[in-house]
């Protein structure tokens, strides 16, 4: 499962603005310099809070293609906001509209209460870190970082101080005199970050900032990004197609598809309580079981599925009418796999192991039920593989609780 450590967020149950939950930041930042001292960061739940950015019914069309479709969102100060979606979902267009490289066809974009639709990119208090980094190859690292400050007409001594500060922040002091092609990819990524942060923008836009780095470096850099975001207190908007990255760094994740926002929520809520099959399927691995509901108690439903089999039970806060079509989404890690029939499980089905994906720390079992449906179950490899009591072609039991899954209408 992705690293969904609830950074700056409370468990789903505390969704109401109750200031009680302990900060979980330390889990991530243990021993990583000064960590955030705020107890709670959920401005989106505070009706008094004014958003830094407000998209008001924004639509963007390229010819007949609608890239952004009547979209309204709020982004708050000091947020780390992730736009997540498959390529072509409009996330990059959304970001380019914030930077000023695209103008919306309809609607307003407010930055700190001011409509910025007609403001050109060089007059906006936003800066962007480009996917290709776009470092100026003919300038040294120092000059790259100083570029924006010089345009501002800042005094020479102040420029020196500011560039030095940025070099320190991104640990690039010894590379100041080098040209971009003389440093490594990871260092270039940090130069791009330093350059875009140098002007102390109200809003920093990051377009797939870690796409060009290998996996290990990417994970390290994610934490660095979070660190820098907290140190500088800048609002970050990041565009990514990598859901793990979005879950790791963001305070809130907006899942997009076809120019629309499907769901905006904290990483844990996006994962635990997706609002649609699309989000459930896009974020992480999931089993989707189709069926029809019958109410059997408060928030409790029985789900008829794959004719002739015992109905499943699941809890849901959203009401379903009797006979309504539904999708039960269950994460593989919430499905238990056992060799013998579990004695007291709300839901238990029998099947045959079709495939095992061994990932070292965990294994994913693909279990085929007699009806042909394949259900994935994940188990930690706490014992040596040779001592596992089931393997390919074995008949096993899968079970899960009534609260393990999420009942979705569409």
């Amino acid at each position, binding site marked *: 499962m992705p690293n969904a450590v609830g950074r700056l967020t409370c468990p789903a149950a505390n969704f109401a603005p109750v200031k009680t939950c302990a900060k979980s930041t330390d889990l991530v930042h243990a021993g990583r310099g000064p960590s955030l001292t705020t107890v709670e960061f959920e401005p989106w739940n505070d009706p008094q809070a004014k958003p830094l950015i407000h998209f008001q019914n924004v639509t963007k069309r390229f010819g007949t293609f609608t890239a952004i479709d009547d979209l309204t969102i709020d982004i708050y100060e000091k947020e780390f906001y992730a736009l997540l979606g498959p390529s072509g979902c409009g996330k990059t267009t959304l970001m380019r509209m914030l930077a000023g490289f695209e103008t919306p066809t309809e609607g307003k974009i407010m930055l700190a209460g001011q409509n910025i639709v007609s403001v050109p990119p060089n007059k906006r208090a936003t*800066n962007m870190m480009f996917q*290709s980094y776009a470092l*100026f190859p003919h300038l040294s690292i120092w000059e790259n970082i100083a570029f924006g400050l010089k345009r501002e007409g800042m005094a020479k001594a102040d420029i020196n101080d500011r560039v030095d500060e940025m070099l320190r922040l991104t640990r690039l002091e010894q590379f100041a005199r080098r040209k971009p092609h003389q440093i490594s990819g990871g260092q270039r990524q940090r130069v791009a970050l330093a350059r875009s942060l140098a002007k102390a923008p109200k809003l920093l836009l990051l377009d797939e900032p870690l796409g*060009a780095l290998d996996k290990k470096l990417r994970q390290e850099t994610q934490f660095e990004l979070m660190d820098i975001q907290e140190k500088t207190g800048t609002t970050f908007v990041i565009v990514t197609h990598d859901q793990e990255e979005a879950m790791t760094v963001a305070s809130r994740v907006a899942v997009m598809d076809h120019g629309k926002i499907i769901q905006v929520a904290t990483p844990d809520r996006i994962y635990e309580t997706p609002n649609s099959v699309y989000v459930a399927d896009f974020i992480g691995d999931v089993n989707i079981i189709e069926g029809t509901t019958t109410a059997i108690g408060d928030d409790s439903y029985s789900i008829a599925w794959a004719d002739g089999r015992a109905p499943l039970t699941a809890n849901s806060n959203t009401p379903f009418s009797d006979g309504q079509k539904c999708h039960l989404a269950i994460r593989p890690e919430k499905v238990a796999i056992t060799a013998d029939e579990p004695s007291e499980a709300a839901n238990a089905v029998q099947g045959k192991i079709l495939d095992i994906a061994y990932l070292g720390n965990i294994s994913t079992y693909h279990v085929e039920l007699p009806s042909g449906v394949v259900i994935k179950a994940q188990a930690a490899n706490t014992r040596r593989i040779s001592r596992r009591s089931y393997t390919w072609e074995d008949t096993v039991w899968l079970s899960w609780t009534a609260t393990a899954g999420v009942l979705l209408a569409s």
Partner: protein
Amino acid sequence: MNKTSWFNVVSLTLGFAFLYIPMIILIIFSFNESKLVTVWAGFSTKWYGELMHNKAFLDAAWVTIKVAVFSSTIATVLGTMAAYVMVRGGRFRGRTLFSGMIYAPLVMPEVITGLSLLLLFIGIGLDRGVLTIVLAHGTFSMCYVSVVVSSRLVTFDRSLEEAALDLGCSSSEAFRLVTLPIIAPAVISGWLLAFTLSLDDLVIASFTTGPSATTLPIKIYSAMRLGVSPEINALSTIMIAIITVGVITASLVAKQQMVRQRREEQDAVRS
């Protein structure tokens, strides 16, 4: 495959002989002692010395250089602008037609270009002289510059300009501070190309020149009618030298730029 077969050696020799024997003969005979072009009478550099005292040739050389410098500068400015608009201008109506029209003069017969320019200059009542040759050369070498520069701009990472805008540049500052320094090698090699083209043009120059301005190619051509002299051989040798240096420099600049670009791309891939 690397074995040198006789066939390859022979065809290579024949090909190069075909291309270069006339020029080599010209260069050899420019060092001829004798006044008779076809009779070798020993080595001498006296014709180069005589050349230095021939005022008509020196004047023509001065005119040629003036024309080449001004026309190639005009061509570089206009050609770079045209290339920039064609590559960056986005898809406006008739874009293909426009870019085709920029390149059309490349294949247009020089006689026609020369004639049409002559008619234009007469039509607007412009006295023919250095100015008209400069304009004419600027016109036809502009498309060469725009070909060279646009081939560089096509591979230019657009986000560099966007980054400059994002960091507070106006469009013109972004061009001056970011785009131009990066495409400079292509612009310089375009200028050198335009310079050499102007230097050796005879057809268009003879259409657009007047009595006050005689360029070297025109001078050589008219002197030829009175017979080939070793002096002309010497002059031609100098021109061959200048043009060779110009072309080699232009291609070196372009190659260096290509190598650097490839290295940067490789770096980008590796990272």
